[in-house]
């Protein structure tokens, strides 16, 4: 680990990706994450790597798709409306079994919405978004340091499973500054072109074809089953979560990303009042920590899910709890960030009502 540097989240994301061995960036400007591509545009040429500003998000994701087919570590970064435009590409990438990293600095929607931080793309990120039965691995860090650390894992997971990995952050994380420490640089000389890459047949005894097309239903079902087998493996091996002060908790907050960070303060406020509140924070929102939450349902009196959306992760929490205990919800919409006091006030209403 190096020394701590004070960095804006949006720039730290780019620097982390570069150190994690990202060799190419393709993207299109959109607020609130323009500092990320701008940072890439300065750094990538210095390192002899690729930076390309595409003509649209539609083009950008298909450039990412092409680069991913060469087995290159590749990234795009965008925000909600731009991510919507990329959904078709995500679906193709999924059924082509190629890897890439996509950062979504979520902003308020629907439509043009606003440029304030939000979490309303949870469904889109975790349930597919594009057409067909597919998933991407979705990481939801709650600090800039965690985002930076997870960026290395994001590229490793993308390579390991040949899958798209989404870094689901929000405008707030992009815009705030924090001291961060970066892990060691990935030695990009060790990143070899994989055997399956479509770069020209060369000395191979066979040619490589990457396609999401299989015209015969039986064949396409086989492709789907192979995808599902991959997802099952990911569900078994890659679930990550943080359980904060859950050992003796009688109540559990559930939250991800920025809200989870605020929720930690809420836990402290409750603890100061002698209330045993803990926090379950999924780090992978897909695969979702279903078993872990279900287990905690035997322990706590209720769950209190807080999000900056109308209750999207709430559905996954409810599925995980499976009726064992009540699951309450509080959220703010359209880019409004709830305060710790506000959340604690809502929580106390629930406790007091018992």
């Amino acid at each position, binding site marked *: 680990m190096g020394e701590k540097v004070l960095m804006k989240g949006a720039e730290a994301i780019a620097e982390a990706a570069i150190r994690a061995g990202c060799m*190419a960036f393709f993207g299109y400007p959109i607020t609130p994450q323009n500092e990320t591509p701008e940072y890439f545009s300065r750094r990538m040429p210095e390192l002899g790597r690729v930076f390309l500003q595409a003509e649209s998000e539609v*083009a950008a994701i298909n450039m990412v798709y092409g680069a991913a087919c060469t087995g290159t570590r590749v990234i795009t970064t965008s925000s909600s409306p731009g991510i919507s435009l990329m959904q078709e590409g995500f679906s193709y990438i999924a059924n082509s079994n190629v890897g890439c990293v996509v950062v979504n600095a979520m902003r308020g929607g629907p439509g043009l919405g606003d440029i304030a931080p939000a979490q309303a793309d949870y469904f889109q990120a975790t349930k597919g978004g594009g057409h067909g039965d597919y998933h991407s691995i979705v990481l939801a860090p709650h600090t800039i340091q965690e985002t930076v650390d997870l960026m290395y894992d994001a590229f490793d997971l993308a390579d390991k499973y040949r899958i798209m990995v989404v870094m689901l952050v929000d405008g707030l994380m992009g815009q705030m500054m924090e001291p961060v420490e970066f892990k060691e640089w990935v030695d990009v000389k060790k990143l070899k072109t994989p055997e399956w890459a479509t770069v020209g047949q060369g000395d191979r005894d066979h040619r490589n074809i990457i396609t999401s097309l299989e015209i015969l239903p039986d064949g396409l079902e086989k492709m789907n089953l192979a995808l599902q087998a991959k997802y099952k493996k990911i569900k078994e091996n890659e679930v990550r979560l943080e359980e904060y002060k859950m050992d003796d908790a009688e109540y559990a907050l559930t939250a991800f990303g920025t809200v989870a960070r605020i929720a930690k303060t809420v836990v402290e406020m409750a603890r100061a009042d002698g209330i045993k509140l803990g926090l379950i924070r999924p780090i992978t929102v897909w695969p979702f920590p279903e078993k872990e939450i279900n287990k905690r349902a035997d322990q706590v009196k209720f769950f209190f899910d807080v999000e900056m959306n109308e209750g999207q992760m709430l559905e996954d929490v409810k599925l995980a709890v499976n009726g064992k205990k009540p699951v309450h919800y509080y959220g703010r919409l359209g880019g409004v960030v709830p305060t710790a006091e506000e959340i604690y006030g809502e929580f106390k209403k629930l406790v007091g009502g018992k």
Partner: protein
Amino acid sequence: MKLIYKKPDTITKRDTTYCPGCPHGIAHRLIAELLEEMDLVKKTVIVWPVGCSVFGYYFIATDAVEAAHGRACAMATGIKRTHPESFVISYQGDGDLASIGIAEAVHAAARGERITVVYINNGNYGMTGGQMAPTTLIGQITTTTPYGRKPELNGFPMHVPEMLAALDGPAYIARAALDSPQHIIQAKKFLRKAFNAQKNNLGFSLVEMISACPTNWKMTPVEAMERIRKEVLPVFPIGEFKVAKGVE
């Protein structure tokens, strides 16, 4: 017996999915011949489109990817930028390139991407059953212009090479036709220059190939080729629209 004509090794033995009389096979053959003559087969990645040539990778034996509809130039960009030593061809029809993918084509050209686009124009959407394309001629009957294409309703045919030739990024832009032996020989000459543009790192290159769609035009193959000469080439004239130094 002396062998004077044979299938290029780079064309597979698989039966094609093309209709009788369809010139896709001619375009495939020209690509395969040139890749062999220019010793590019093992370096080549072809980006195949959505359209009749969606299964093109079954017929030309190179590394290949299958793009989303209209996105072949973007995908080709991603491959070429991250792997510049690959020889990258984007094979697209007129619906794929001139309609849904026009932005990607124009911007790849404007950036001077070192890719080669083979752009097949048969004046309609072949695979989906013969709907109007951006290249459909005025008055031409298609399944979505049952009364003929009318300018006041459907606008005018798009001339992609002429449009792209106005940009500074392309090194070679031409239009050829696949209707006759003479024109096919010329098409190969044009395509060789387009391949040279990429091989010599000069810029973007594109060859439009005026093609036929006997099935959807409801003509015999011979009638379809005659229609190209009588009706299509007067609107889409053969020629070179941009020729940078060094493509010869």
